């Protein structure tokens, strides 16, 4: 074997993206969007709650829905 010839490099290992890491990315995007909505909505509901009493009823309904759906997303990541 000729020592002047450099050795041929072995091919790079293939880049493997774990599917769950992709789900985490979507999860955090969803959380950021929801945080924006939640801030805006809850701010208005609390600020004008005396004028619009139904807003105080909507708040826990909205909160429970958000928590259930975030829980379902986490369960989905766990099962994937």
């Amino acid at each position, binding site marked *: 074997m000729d020592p002047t010839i450099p050795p041929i490099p072995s091919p790079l290992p293939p880049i493997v993206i774990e*599917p769950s890491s992709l*789900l985490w990315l*979507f*999860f955090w995007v*969803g959380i950021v*969007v*929801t945080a924006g*909505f*939640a801030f*805006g*909505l809850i*701010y*208005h*509901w609390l600020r*004008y709650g*005396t*004028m*619009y009493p*139904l*807003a105080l009823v*909507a708040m826990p309904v*909205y909160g429970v*829905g*958000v928590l259930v*759906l*975030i829980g*379902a*997303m986490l*369960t*989905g*990541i*766990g*099962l*994937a």
Partner: protein
Amino acid sequence: MNLGETFFKDTRPGEHVVAIIRRHWFILFKDIFGLAVIFLIPFFLVPLVFGTLTQGGAINASGGFVLFFASLWSLIIWNLIFFRWTDYYYDVWILTSDRIIDIDQRGLFHRDVATLFDLNHIEDVKTILSGVIGNIFNFGKIQIQTAATRDEFVIDGIANPVHFERLIRDTQQKHMAEMFDRGHPPMRRGRPV
């Protein structure tokens, strides 16, 4: 203190709230129905697309993936539903004994509160019920002709506009009578009405 005064505190001396008017519920229903259609689309489309791709072995979607994306999609729609509802619920017209006030909520963080006009400026009130749905559910618009700079105001999509028109006329008459009693006859374009 009645509900109206709790609702709107910035009243003038002697002024009281006569009615609080919102858009008809069908306006909200239309918005929510649109969101429901958008919500359901992926539940029909995704199995169709995935079914085609998985037949060739290109994608192997597990139950976890489906649950995750269904929940993410539902979360976004859930936020939008409450956003639309807040927009609808916060938009009101307040008829007081002196004037009509418009509270206009445009999305979040944009809220206009303005006096549309004083009742003694009203020259004519017109009710318009148009369309099949508007007639069935009894909602439509009210056009109010005034002597103010901007001469016509339209209040659109309100429930029972005929009742609201009558209410405006009755309140206006009472308001004018009160002004005469106080010795300040209402003036329009520099002349007593």
